[in-house]
């Protein structure tokens, strides 16, 4: 077995663009779910709207890159308003139902034939990231031991990590402030917060917008790192991985989503590298698993890991078990 490659790939996924995109998405979801208690099952739509906002602005309409970013961000805000206005006055589960449906609608719109003139249909769009890569200051790959990143990936990573830094700073500052206190109190009991004179619907809307915009940054990174957008990337399983990551890191912990994303992608990359190698080397008999099945087994193991996590450590890596176990009367 080539341990250099196996560990190299695994270590790279601790820092690479996929990890970053999921971390940003999960930072946003943590604002919704972890801090505010909003059951948003459509976080993937925020990433999709941002990615397509950027891609369509540049590739379809030929507008400048920076305008694409502005439109992507505005798209996330509009989506938050569309989701929030009809549902945030209602019981919490309505948001869950509406967001999961809205995310599917958004995805189906992106891939619909009648809109393909603008969206590229199921093939998606390319060639919107040239202006971004023109600014790339790196010309040679980064090689540290067994880890290896090419210049394009390095450039996206640089921006991505900067965005993670800014996002975490915003979440950290907001959540330790009186604003964050209201947000966390809403998670505990909306009516109590209302009885103290706070406009709960407005705070939930602010949270939905903040988390959506932070998540949309992940959409930009995802689209730029692949220099392409494709509708089926933004399906519901995308959102479920984000939930896995948030819970893994510990809900309502500032660094939780980043650490959760790192662990999630490290484990997945490691399993996906180790299993095929072990099969070809004969350590795992082929009647048990063929190399093509190894990828699916990777996800099965991740799922099993999540189940074990929820049973034995529901507070995640950073959480406080005492706090999670408090009864919510």
């Amino acid at each position, binding site marked *: 077995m080539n341990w250099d490659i196996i560990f190299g790939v695994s270590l790279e996924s601790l820092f690479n663009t996929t990890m970053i995109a999921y971390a940003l998405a999960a930072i946003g979801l943590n604002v919704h779910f972890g801090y505010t208690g909003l059951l948003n099952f459509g976080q993937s739509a925020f990433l999709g709207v941002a990615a397509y906002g950027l891609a369509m602005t540049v590739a379809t309409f030929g507008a400048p890159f920076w305008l694409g970013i502005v439109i992507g961000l505005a798209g996330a805000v509009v989506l938050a308003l569309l989701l929030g206005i009809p549902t945030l006055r209602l019981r919490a589960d309505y948001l869950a139902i509406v967001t999961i449906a809205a995310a599917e609608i958004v995805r189906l719109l992106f891939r619909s034939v009648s809109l393909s003139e603008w969206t590229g249909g199921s093939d998606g769009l390319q060639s919107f990231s040239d202006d971004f890569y023109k600014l790339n200051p790196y010309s040679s790959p980064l090689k540290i031991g067994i880890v290896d990143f090419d210049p394009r990936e390095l450039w996206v990573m640089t921006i991505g990590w900067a965005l993670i830094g800014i996002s975490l700073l915003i979440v950290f500052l907001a959540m330790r*402030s009186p604003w964050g206190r209201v947000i966390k*109190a809403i998670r505990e*009991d909306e009516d109590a917060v209302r*009885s103290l004179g706070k406009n709960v619907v407005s705070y939930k809307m602010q949270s939905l917008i903040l988390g959506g915009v932070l998540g949309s940054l992940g959409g930009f990174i995802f689209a730029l790192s692949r220099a392409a957008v494709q509708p089926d990337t933004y399906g519901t399983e995308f959102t479920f991985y984000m939930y896995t990551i948030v819970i893994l890191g510990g809900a309502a912990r500032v660094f939780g989503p980043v650490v959760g994303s790192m662990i999630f992608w490290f484990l997945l990359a490691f399993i996906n590298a180790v299993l095929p190698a072990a099969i070809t080397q004969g350590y795992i008999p082929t009647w048990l698993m063929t190399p093509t099945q190894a990828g699916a087994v990777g996800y099965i193991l991740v799922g099993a890991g999540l189940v074990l996590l929820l049973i034995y450590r529901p507070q995640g890596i950073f959480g406080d078990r005492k706090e999670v176990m408090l009864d919510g009367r």
Partner: protein
Amino acid sequence: MADETTVAPGVARMREALKDVPHEPGAPKPDPILVADKVVRRFGGLTAVSVDHVEIPRGGITALIGPNGAGKTTFFNLLTGFDKPDEGDWTFNGKPLAGVPAHKVANQGMVRTFQLTKALSRLKVIDNMRLGGTGQRGEKFWQSLIPALWRGQEKEITERADDLLARFKLDAKREDFAGSLSGGQRKLLEMARALMVQPDMVMLDEPMAGVNPALTQSLLGHVKDLREDGMTVLFVEHDMDMVRDISDWVIVMAQGKVIAEGTPDTVMADPRVIDAYLGAHHDGTEHDPDVVAALEAEGETADE
């Protein structure tokens, strides 16, 4: 028992204010803080609240009593904007409040607690308290990102919160999660938190239920202190000894209606009130069926 020479100033003030008020449902008060008219709330076929006219005197402690299911909690919910009436209007401090959302009601100075306590479990006790502070600059999103803008105000609020926690003997629990408190301590915390809003009127829904007797005495003391500070208190309570001990005025509800009003002594001697409580025993086994029927008939005529 109350010795005229040792009576607290607040008690004396309220006795004076209420001395000419007739002891009858809907009686007008000299300076009401809250006036409600024709407030009706139906749940399907059930009319939970149907209050024709009621006035709450300013600066006193008013007890709202009545058998279970009388509509007291529903009436609280309506007045505070947590539920919407089918009909009715009411004013608070002279301002119409019907249709005003709950958070605005609180901001106008009318704050309520809940029969089922709503402690914010995974917030510390001190943060539960701080949440009650009104007009906080740091509660605005953009300003929240710059601590320098709100740190001073946060300090003032924390000082006020610590004072109240000490008064309610919760200062030792300051750093604990509210979810770790006992039921009685949660009631105390909820009441203290409501006071952080600095309301003109607090509405306490069964504040003593589930509180152990030692704590009850201190809770009663706190409520009396509020009257001395000039605050208006409206509270729901079942224990008649407590009602007699602290209230200046008593309003009795039964089957959604206000059926009697008066000072504790007159109300508790009122046959309609005794009747309402007896009539609440629908099992009927404890009473001679004929007597209950007679009382109920009498109660119906009294309602007209």
